[in-house]
């Protein structure tokens, strides 16, 4: 029953998010000047006539009142139809779905880097709490949180692509294409995780079941690796699930910098070209991704929580 109520409340969250955000963007688009019709007609200095413009306006339904347009759009969404891009003339769902794998792939790449960076630094900080390795780790986290990610990416391009000519500058394809964007993303995300892991580890290392393990004469390294670290990874995964939204935001600049054909690049182009259907579709898909990942975290918690308490007692 508990699970059902969680699902229910997350679903309500999804509906509200989509309704509020799509309405706000819809309104914004309608009240600010500039429309995509002219952008379509102006492709490569093409000639446009007023007749064509009116025809296109009709075709996209822009001659209707705003609320009617919005209602129409919602009705289509309820039938799982996200409409067609005004510029590319392709189904919005197809466009977003064709960009999703690249974004997911980059996310995974970023996670690998994130793991490589934050676990050692977090462990160092916790084990040597208050001593110099702790300060080093905290300062690295602090610096990482202060660097503009695209600037870091540019510096990486400068060093690795231009000075040493080791890695590609743009696009996807081979494994080498993943290196720079993943490093940039991983570093940009890591400070939060380093901090969290350190705090959790400190808390766990002081907890009773670790004391019990020590008392049983287990070796320190073993305790650290197999007990404390494992216990501390749960909040990290939770955090990842909950911060998927900010991840999708942060990945956008990196995708643009590296010309990575992901969802972020798509949405920025859509905003620039005022491609309404794509923007609205993106809001729905991202809202969906965010809510689903939150839901998974909720359910996982429900499954694990009693177990953790038990584990503490059994030790």
């Amino acid at each position: 029953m508990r699970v059902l109520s969680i699902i229910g409340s997350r679903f309500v969250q999804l509906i509200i998010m989509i309704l509020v955000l799509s309405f706000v963007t819809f309104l914004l688009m309608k009240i600010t000047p500039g429309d995509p019709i002219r952008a379509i007609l102006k492709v490569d200095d093409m000639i446009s006539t007023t007749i064509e413009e009116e025809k296109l306006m009709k075709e996209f339904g822009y001659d209707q009142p705003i609320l009617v347009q919005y209602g129409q759009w919602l009705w289509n969404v309820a039938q799982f139809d996200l409409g067609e891009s005004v510029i590319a003339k392709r189904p919005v769902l197809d466009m977003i779905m064709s960009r999703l794998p690249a974004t997911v792939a980059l996310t995974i790449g970023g996670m690998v880097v994130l793991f490589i960076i934050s676990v050692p630094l977090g462990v160092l900080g916790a084990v040597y709490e208050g001593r110099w390795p702790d300060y080093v780790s905290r300062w690295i986290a602090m610096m990482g949180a202060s660097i503009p990610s695209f600037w870091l990416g540019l510096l990486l391009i400068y060093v690795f692509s231009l000075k040493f000519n080791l890695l590609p500058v743009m696009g996807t394809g081979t494994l080498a294409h993943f290196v720079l964007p993943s490093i940039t993303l991983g570093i940009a995300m890591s400070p939060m995780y380093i901090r969290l892991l350190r705090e959790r580890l400190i808390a766990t290392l002081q907890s009773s079941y670790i004391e019990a393990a020590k008392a049983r004469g287990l070796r320190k390294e073993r305790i650290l690796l197999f007990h404390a670290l494992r216990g501390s990874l749960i909040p990290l995964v939770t955090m990842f699930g909950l911060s998927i939204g900010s991840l999708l935001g942060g990945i956008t600049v990196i995708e643009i910098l590296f010309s990575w054909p992901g969802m972020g690049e798509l949405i920025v182009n859509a905003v620039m070209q005022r491609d309404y259907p794509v923007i609205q579709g993106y809001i729905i898909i991202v809202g969906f991704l965010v809510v689903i990942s939150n839901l998974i975290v909720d359910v996982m918690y429900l499954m694990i929580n009693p177990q953790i308490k038990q584990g503490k007692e059994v030790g």
Partner: protein
Amino acid sequence: MFQKQLMMYLVFAMILAFVTGCNSGEDPSSQGESEISSETGDKSITLLFSFASTTIDPHQDWMGVRAGIAETLVKVDEDLDIKPWLAESWEQNDDRTWTFTIREGVTFHDGTAVNGEAVKASFERIMEVNDALASNLKIDTMEASGQDITFTTTEEYPAFVSELVHTNASIIKVDAENISEQPIATGPFQVVDFTSEAEVKLERYDGYWDGAANLDEVTVKFNSDGNVRALALQSGEADIAYHLPPETLDPVEANDNLRVESVSSLRAHFVLYNAAKPALQDLHVRKAIDLLINRDVAVSEIMNGHATAANGPFNPDFAFANNEEPESYDPSQAEALLKQAGYEKNENGKLEKDGESLTLTLATFQGRPELPLMAQYLQAEAANIGIEINIVTVENIDSYLWDQQDEWDLATYSMLTAPRGDGGYFLNVAYLPEGSLNPGQINIPELNELTQRLNVIANVDERVALQKQAVEIIQEEVPQSFILYPHIIVGVSERIKNWSPGSEEYYLITNTMDVE
């Protein structure tokens, strides 16, 4: 306890796998393994272009002809003269009718022969899917017989043949499936794979009528960021990179493996005046601003020398351009003109007339990175003599200029002024009051009348004479200040042979280009 956690990680991994799995067919990591296929002995190149294509349908996107997939009946050569292509010859029967004879032996990529009927079907599809081109071609009826096709236009239309040069007027197999991703046409290369807004992969079509291409494979990639294109060229990810910004050229030129090719384009960069604004309706003011533009410095510093100073809308290479020297930079003359117009300096050093200071809003856009620089340069020059210019950088300059006509006074703008080697198009769209690219509401009766006359004249010499007159009127009235004609700047790897960019930018990939 450990098992539960393991399960949790598994759940998480499954979610990820699910999300990726949904589209595993297009997993980006599986793309582009042929990156360095030249190692296998295949001749392949990568061309990096600036405008991304969302479809490769040759009737809707220019990349069809640009990438050597499709071809048109006629083409323009280096001197922008019209030459036969798929049509070996044509003749004009009367003011409205033309008959074209299609070359024997031309085949589509699936091997079927191209005849008059196929050409007719192709044009019928154009009428259906491309309204803008259809309204431009003005085709009334078509008749095919054997290798011949006869077009009849709806009205007397001297420019008809030159309109057929338009890349969207290309010939494709209309009953092919999935034309937007896998069109079947007649060019030296056929499409292997197309990823929207990312790349087109091409391979040689062995049955090409004009001799099979030297290259085995070509990849055309898109990237809208000029700096990235320059970087990709240097790192070897591209062999040809189009439209490099002038500021990125130094390292390319310094690199022994690369060369910079620069050809004059059919384009002009200019400052557009909003004719609806009272201050700018005064010719003195427009002329004064014109005098503040330092064209030589713009060419040498902002464009790194890859441009020609402008004296009018058309590049001096054209017969219909005029050959006067460009207006020289002269701020004191500008000040004198403004004085004549009634502007006096107030106590803050700003020019003012009837209590109103001369403050202008200048719109510019990042799409061509040199334009904001020119805008700032003009802003500084204007400030020196007491004109205050505020710059707004907009993303979509066209909709801004049209939709906010009250807000801007000046705009830096760029247009193809002679797209198919003729100025008639520009005179029509940029100066006629109802012109589709006339957001500044320019309306010069004398010029309008001249353009109307031009539209019904076919004789080349008469057209040239009329267009020269038009240029003179434009130079007197200064509805825009032409700054320079930018070059098309292309970075090319030294391994590319038998290739150079053309001014028309229609034919990027050819059957004759080769690599070492």
